Each structure stands twice: as C-alpha cells, then as structure tokens.
C-alpha cells in the first residue's frame, strides 16, 4: 500500500479511519504498537484534531483514575473492631 508522509492516501483521504486510530491508542501509549502502525497512528494524529482531543481525553481519564488510587486521603483508618472480629473468627474456627 502506498503511504505518504501526510497522513492522507493517494486519493486525498485519511490513510486510516478515526476508528482504527482509536483501536491503536492503548498499544501506542504503552509503547507496544508495531513500528508501522505507530507511524500510521502518528500521521493520523497530525491531520485529525478530533483524534488528538480524543487521545488527550483518554490519557486524562487514565490519569484521573490513577490519581484516585494515589490519593492519601483515601486510606481509611483500620477499625480496631474489624481486626478483633477477624482474629475472633479465626479462633472460632471459621
């Protein structure tokens, strides 16, 4: 298949669709997308503002979920009665 450095094919249409681009996002961000697809993905990103916004939102979404996990205020104090109940349950042979 003929490729161009522009992200468009010989007929002037985008080389790949947005849907194909979206399918590549996770592998691209994790650095496991094969070189050929990676180059195609990057060319599409050069010509498609919708996909640029979509990928930014995707990254932001993952980052926000990761922030929830890293938040120190999220760690609850351990209720002493829970620890007691767990150890008691063991004693009673549960």
């Amino acid at each position, binding site marked *: 298949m003929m490729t161009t450095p522009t992200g468009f094919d010989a007929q002037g249409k*985008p080389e790949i*669709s*947005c*849907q*194909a681009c*979206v399918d590549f*996002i*996770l592998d691209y961000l994790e650095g496991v997308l094969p070189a050929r697809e990676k180059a195609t993905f990057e060319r599409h990103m050069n010509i498609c503002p*919708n*996909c640029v*916004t*979509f990928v*930014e*939102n*995707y990254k*932001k*979404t*993952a980052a*926000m*979920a*990761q*922030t*929830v*996990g*890293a*938040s*120190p205020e*999220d*760690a*609850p*104090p*351990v*209720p002493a009665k*829970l*620890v007691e*109940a*767990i*150890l008691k*349950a*063991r004693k009673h042979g*549960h």
Partner: protein
Amino acid sequence: MMTNTQTSSSTERIAAEAPLIERLRAGDDGAFAELVSTHTGRMLVVARRVTGSEADAEDAVQEAFISAFKNIEQFDGRSTLGTWLHRIVVNAALMKRRRKRSRPETSIEQLLPQFDDGFHREKPQSIEVVTNGGGGSIVEREAVMAALDELPDEFREVIVLRDVEGLDSKSAAESLGISDSLVRQRLHRGRQALMKLLERRMKGIES
C-alpha cells in the same frame, strides 16, 4: 498508597516472608495478628473501591481473611502474601458487589465513541477544559468514583485494578482469572466508557 511492585524484587520480598509463613502454618496466634494488622488497611482500600461501600468493604475484608486462614496451607509462596491476599479480597469484594447489585448496568456499547464511516460522529470535547471549570482534585476524584460506579462490573474491576490500584495487566489478569489480552481489551473499552461518563458528569448532564 499505590504499591510499587517495581522498586523491590518480588523474590526478596517472598524470601523475607518465609518465617512469617512458617509461623502461620504452625498456627501461631501472633503471626495471624501480624498478618491482619499489616494488610487490613490496604485490603480495605481495595475492597472499598471494588464494592463502593464502607460496610461491604469491611465484610469483604473479613471474608477474605477467613478464606486466607482456611487456605494458608495452599499458599504456594510463589507470590507475596500481599499479592495473594489482594487477589482474595478482590474476589470477595466482587462477590459482595455482585450479590448486592440492584440496578441494571449501563451497557458499555452506548458509552463507546460512535463513528460514521469510521470517523468520529461527534467532535470530542476536551475533558480538561471542563475540569478546570469544575473545581479541584476532590471534585475530580468524586467524579471519577461516581463514574466508575456506573461502569459494568467487568470493565470497572479492570480499571480499578489497572489504573486505580496500579497493577500491571499480568497481575490484574491473575487476580481476575482472565487472560492478559482480555484485561487489555476491557481496559481500553472501559477507559473510553469512563471518559464518556466523566464528560457527562463534568458538564453536569444527567445520563
């Protein structure tokens, strides 16, 4: 806090736990108390994120420990106790959540991007712009937790393990008993659905 599994070698940590495991297998009360006091906090955090409820999280942690006590002989020592307990509490919490589910789940399909002829049907709006107008990190955090709660469980649990808990795909796959590739597929679709839910929440649109 997120566990950083990369900074210390698993092999070293597994070796360091060997004496405790021996004491657990010998039925040493002190060893069980040590196990519970060391891991309960972390397990509660995980369980709360999976169940979305403090009370259910406590129940799940208790059930997880009871299961662990019963099965300590079967612990093969190939992972750390923390990893083993994590897997058990995730499963206990998932069971708890599944038993209590009372509302129909949102279908993942309607949360995924729509395409016409392969191209975006709607112009995506930047979440960042909306977020800046919506407030600080607590607002974001609450929005993420609420949006996560709307995801179908199979996607929610993968995002909780991979993004929220920071596990890699392989560890998440082990915890969930599914393949690495299925974890990645669900993560990818789940993130896109979460993105849509966050867009809606941050725009104040009720879904």
